[in-house]
């Protein structure tokens, strides 16, 4: 108990803060913060596996998140039959061509010795393959994008429940991570950081502009939900009864019958959105707990010890007969897959897929701030980092507003400085994140909850 005191204190303070938001702002805001905290926690667990366990820098978190989101679209949206009949064959044929190219390149790589000629052959295969694919897919893509462009204009998905996409998202992200890892893991730490950052930008560019697959910047809205809809809830009897029971104290104070009905309606509307958010919280909590158990088990297993050995001294681990390259690849894939789950969860919660909203600041650098602030190498720390940083990210604007009002209390309301500062309150979150990160890195470089190695 004693050992874990700081963990328990830190988490209680965090929960207390969220409850305070619930009391003083509204339970709706508190729950949406909590849900995004949980999603951030999943992302930080992924990043923490890579950075904390193995010391790999992955600045491509945004790309994996977006792939997870793409999985949510491809799984849950109903297939667009017309589009399939218009251009489906071309797309499928192109897909076979892609597989063909990959196999051909593999064959050349296996069959021939490393040489200049081999490089040229590979380049020739890839370039000619791309040209053929363009010729094959172009008419198909055009046909697909012409099918009712205002509402569909893409192939659609499989029409399955969206929950499945969490697993598929993990596979998507893991697959991409396998390719990137094969290519880039040999690079030095800072090169790997830049390479992954740029690759994730390429992924986003593709998702944004391949309209036949993702609808691109036209966004996909109204995805299926694993939770009930507010509108339906507001009409169900058991839910109205439940809300009535919860608020019976307040309702009893209102004597007028019609007023009481109006108040009840108001409570039902508020309650329905809180209830939906609670459903999501439950689902996300299950994911977080499962992942936490798995990652903790992994951390204290022989495999976890090996990973730390590789992280702390690559050469020594290599000399001990551990396959560093293979383990790095494995952990890169695992971590990215977890991030992919988070990406799918995010899209599930929002109910919409907006490729334009994936920006490195929010989905890569902020996650890194979370990992560093929380404590790399410690799963509880990483999750706490996700909570703390997301909480501050959202609450920075109110806090900033309060600070501005406090410091400029002597000025008139129309003073240009005060007006300007109040207008720029949304940007105080960047300032807070930056200063927070710098302070933590300077005075507590291992994070709020530092890594603890205990041999069990």
């Amino acid at each position, binding site marked *: 108990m004693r050992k874990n005191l700081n963990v328990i204190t830190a988490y209680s303070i965090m929960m207390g803060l969220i409850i305070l938001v619930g009391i003083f702002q509204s339970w709706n805001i508190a729950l949406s913060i909590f849900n995004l905290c949980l999603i951030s926690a999943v992302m930080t667990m992924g990043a923490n596996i890579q950075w904390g366990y193995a010391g790999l820098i992955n600045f491509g978190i945004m790309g994996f998140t977006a792939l997870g989101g793409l999985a949510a679209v491809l799984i849950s949206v109903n297939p667009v039959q017309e589009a399939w009949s218009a251009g489906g064959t071309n797309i499928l044929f192109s897909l076979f061509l892609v597989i063909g190219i990959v196999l051909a390149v593999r064959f050349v790589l296996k069959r021939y010795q490393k040489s200049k000629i081999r490089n040229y052959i590979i380049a020739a295969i890839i370039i000619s393959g791309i040209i053929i694919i363009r010729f094959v897919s172009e008419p198909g893509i055009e046909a697909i994008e012409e099918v009712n462009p205002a509402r569909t204009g893409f192939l659609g998905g499989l029409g399955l429940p969206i929950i499945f996409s969490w697993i598929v998202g993990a596979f998507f992200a893991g697959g991409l991570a396998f390719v990137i890892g094969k290519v880039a893991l040999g690079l030095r730490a*800072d090169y790997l950081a830049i390479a992954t950052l740029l690759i994730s930008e390429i992924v986003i560019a593709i998702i944004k502009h391949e309209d036949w697959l993702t609808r691109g910047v036209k966004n996909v809205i109204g995805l299926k939900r694993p939770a009930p809809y507010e509108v339906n809830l507001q009409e169900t009897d058991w839910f109205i009864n439940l809300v009535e029971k919860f608020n019976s104290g307040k309702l009893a104070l209102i004597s007028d019958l019609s007023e009481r009905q109006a108040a009840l309606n108001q409570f039902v509307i508020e309650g329905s959105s809180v209830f939906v958010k609670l459903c999501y919280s439950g689902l996300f909590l299950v994911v977080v707990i499962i992942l936490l158990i798995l990652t903790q088990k992994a951390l204290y297993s022989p495999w976890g010890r090996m990973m730390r050995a590789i992280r702390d001294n690559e050469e020594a681990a290599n000399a001990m007969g551990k396959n560093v390259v293979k383990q790095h690849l494995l952990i890169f894939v695992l971590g990215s897959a977890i991030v992919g789950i988070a990406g799918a969860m995010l899209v599930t919660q929002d109910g919409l897929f907006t490729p334009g909203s994936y920006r490195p600041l929010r989905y890569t650098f902020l996650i890194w701030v979370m990992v560093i602030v929380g404590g790399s190498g410690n799963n509880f720390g990483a999750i706490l980092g996700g909570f703390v940083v997301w909480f501050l990210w959202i609450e920075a604007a109110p806090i900033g507003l309060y600070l501005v009002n406090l410091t400029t209390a002597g000025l008139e309301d129309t003073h240009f400085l005060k007006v300007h500062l109040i207008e720029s309150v949304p940007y105080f979150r960047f300032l807070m994140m930056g200063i927070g990160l710098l302070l933590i890195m300077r005075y507590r470089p291992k994070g709020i909850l530092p890594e603890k190695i205990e041999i069990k």
Partner: protein
Amino acid sequence: MDFLNALILLLNYIFVPALAYGSQLAIGAIFVTLIYGILRFANFATGDMMSFGTMVAILFTWYFQSIGLTLGFLPTALIAIPFAILFMGLYMLIIDKFVFKYYRQNKSPPVQLAMVSIGVMFVTQAVVRIIIGPSDRRFFDGEKFLIRANEFKEITGLNEGLAIKSTQVITIVVTIILVSTLFWFLNKTKTGKSMRAYSDNEDLALLSGIDPKKIVMITWMIAAILATIGGVLYGLDKSFKPFTYFNNMLPIFAAAIVGGIGNPFGAFLGGYVIAFSEILLTYAYKKFFIYVLPESMEPDGLIQLLSTDYKFAVSFSILVIVLLYRPSGIFKGKIL
């Protein structure tokens, strides 16, 4: 005649814009490479530092415009640059003193410094947005074109016009002056040589009596000059928006690595490699082929290798290929 038309077409749409864009990237890439070579970390705050310098330049431009000080047909921002450099240098030295110095003295691994630079990135971004706001700003004044497309047509009697914006010429001229002075400084002066020595082998340089504090300070000052001028030139040519500047960090990194990180000359050429490949691969060659080929062979499609949406993706793919086959860059990196 058709051949001339085709040539002018390429000049107008590919060569001139790519040269200007490449120069802007090149200045940024030298900035990245200097920090990497001497201070030994990948500076993720590059784009935001450039936007800070540009912001100060814009504020001075507005001040000069309000007191009626202009340069006639040249943009007022050119007089604002020296003042902006002073502020930028001050800002960088303050950041170095309070942030980077500690890690440098503790000999922290480069990764940690890169993480710290992310903190600086957040702070700088906040400062810029709080002071000037996130919106798009144009601060160009003076003559917009050196040669207008229709004037060119009238003079030469060709079908294709060649438009040269004055900002493009300013960019190229300033880049040539700046970069040649920098190379002269690095290669000929004593301070420049000691900087190169420090970059090459820190311990040996310290043994021969080179003052590391002086080297670091001069590096930041040069970085301030590069960041401000690079940022202002980009802002004059396009427009100033903090978010775009943050994004520009990516092709700048690509340029620095493609050229061989730590090698200023490589970074300089890397900027052009990135700019030209971006524009060459995403340009629609239809009109060009109409001029060059006989009528019977006229193309139907746009003859575009990649859609312009993939502009950034092109430079990143080049980077990935270079990293795979020649991680030290086209010109061997890490010799300053």
